[in-house]
Every structure is written in C-alpha cells, then in structure tokens.
C-alpha cells in the first residue's frame, strides 16, 4: 500500500514538474494520470496493491471535496447577492450538459456502429 501510494505521488510530482517546466496549461495531476496509465500499459499487468489502493481512494472520492465545499462560507455574501443567477445557471447548465453529452454519445455510437459493453 505504501509502495502504491508512493507511485501515485511520484506520478503527480512528475506531472507537476512537467507542466511547470514546459508551461503546459494542463494541471499536474492530469499529466500524472497519463503517466501512470502509460506505466500500466508498458508493464502489461496491474500490481495488486496499486489496484487496491486506487480503488479505496476512488470509492470515497466525494469525501475529498468536503474541505473545498466548506469554503462556501467565505463566499456567502457574493452567493447571497447573486444567488438567482448562480443557481439557475448551474442547474440549467447541468441538465443541458448531461443531456447533450449522453445524446451525442448515443447518436455517434449508433451512427459509427461502435460502443456497448459486451465485445
């Protein structure tokens, strides 16, 4: 588990370094994701501790958003004065985004004859 955690942190660190040194607009952790994926493909197999550690972290991903969410108290004044615009925009945009994404996914899957879960 310590080894797996170290690997995750190393990938993130390498991603941060790459993003900063090359001035890429992409966040470091996303580059770290790509690197870890390449490592897994190159290795051909998934080490059991890495699988376990990652799945444990991802299962409780929503916990990790709580500290930033509590920051709502800092912006209470702004949200109070603009709450109609903010809430309507967030809600309508979420409905539109989910609908457009899912519909385009389905149309293109049918049109191109790809997609589906079973081989």
């Amino acid at each position, binding site marked *: 588990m310590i080894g797996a955690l170290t690997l995750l942190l190393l990938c993130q660190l390498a991603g941060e370094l790459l993003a900063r040194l090359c001035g890429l*607009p992409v966040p470091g952790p996303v580059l770290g994701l790509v690197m870890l994926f390449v490592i897994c493909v190159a290795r051909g197999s998934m080490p059991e501790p890495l699988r376990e550690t990652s799945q444990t972290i991802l299962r409780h991903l929503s916990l990790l958003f709580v500290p930033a969410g509590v920051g709502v108290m800092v912006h209470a004044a702004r949200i109070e004065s603009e709450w109609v615009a903010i809430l309507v925009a967030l809600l309508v945009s979420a409905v539109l985004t989910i609908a457009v994404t899912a519909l385009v996914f389905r149309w293109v899957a049918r049109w191109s004859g790809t*997609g589906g879960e079973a081989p």
Partner: protein
Amino acid sequence: MMPRFGDVWVYLSATPLLWLTATLAAYVAAFWLYQRAGQNPLVNPVAVSVAALVAVLIVSGTDYPTYFNGAQFVHFLLGPATVAIAVPLHLNFAVVRRNLVPMVAALLAGSVTAAVSVVGIAYALGASRETLLSLAPKSVTAPIAMGIAEQIGGVPSLTAVLVILTGITGAMIAKPVLNFLGIRDWPARGFAVGLTAHGIGTARAFQVNEVAGTFAGIAMGLNGLATAFLVPLLAALLG
C-alpha cells in the same frame, strides 16, 4: 483538578486534529445517512457534510482558514486520487477502446455546452464579471478548475465552491434526466455524469456501477484537459 473546557478548546483549535476529525466524522455520518436513504441522490453525502460542518463552524465561531488548516490533509488527496483514475482506466481499457469514437464526440459537445451554457445563462441573469469568469470551468474537477479560473481572472476559491455545487447538482439530477431520455447503457450514462459533475458525479457513478464509474472517471479527466484549453480560448475571444 479538571482543566476548564475553554482551555481544552484553545488547545484543540490550534491543532489540525480537531477539524480533520470533524471532516471525517461529518462524512461518515453523511454517508451512513445516504445509505439509509437507499442512496437517494438528494441525500448527497458531500452536501450533507458541508452543511453540517458550516453549521458547526458558525456556531463555534471558527473561521475557514482555521478549519482548512486541519482539513487540508483530506483536500490534498485530490491530487493522488486524480492520478489513481489511471487504474480503472487501464482495467477497463477494452470497453473504453470500443467506445472511443462516441467518447470523443460527446467530450467535445459536452465541454462546449457546459462552459457556454453556464456563462450565457448567468450573464443573461445579470451576474457580475468575476462571477462569470469563476463559473466558466464549473464542470471540471476542483484542482483543474481552480487553475483555469486563476488563468482567466476568476476567483479560484469561489470556483472551488461553484464546482462543488455543480457536482452535487449533477449527481442529484443525473438519474431522472438520463431515465427521461431513455439512455440505458452504462458507458453513455457514466460518461455524461462524469463530464458534467466531475469527481462528485464519478463517486456517485462508482456507487451505482463499476463500468459507469470508469467512464465517469475518464470523462472527468478528458473534460479537465478539454476545458483547460477551451475556456481560456473562449475568455480571450470574449475579451
């Protein structure tokens, strides 16, 4: 002699222990409630924990920086968790490859819809310029969205809050919207939820189905990349 409660409070409020524990305890309780409610998306564990913690902080007169001093250890894990998405991506690579064409099309359509619709609606309803710039990257996972907001002149900490509100909203409305549209396959459902509601949608998707969760995770990563290029471009175009 018993130490006075006030002294204990002064000691505890100066260490990260108290608010770190409070964050985990609030989440454990909220997650229990969520399970008890049959994983009803309206009882979203992030929304419930945030509401409970804000109430406790206000009642105890604690400011956000003091709270965050303890909670930052949880916040920090967002980075390694983003990297960890490579694991389900690799494990489900065969399904992912089969859905590559629809994924790319849905990614482009979805990331443009997310940014343009939120800014357009908020602008029409008279939101301030700072709020608009902070709203633009709202469908992207927090660490990425905050970077984008900073780049285009938004307020990163406000963006973090808007991102979380988006995630909670997305996780709540996904099921009725997708059922209404008759979208049944897990790749399409997961991808739409992850693109719209980033990590909070992905967490919800993983609780429902592993394939959906994987596609949600991929959508979250890809939308992070796409939006990081798209939103600064749009902001430059609009001046």
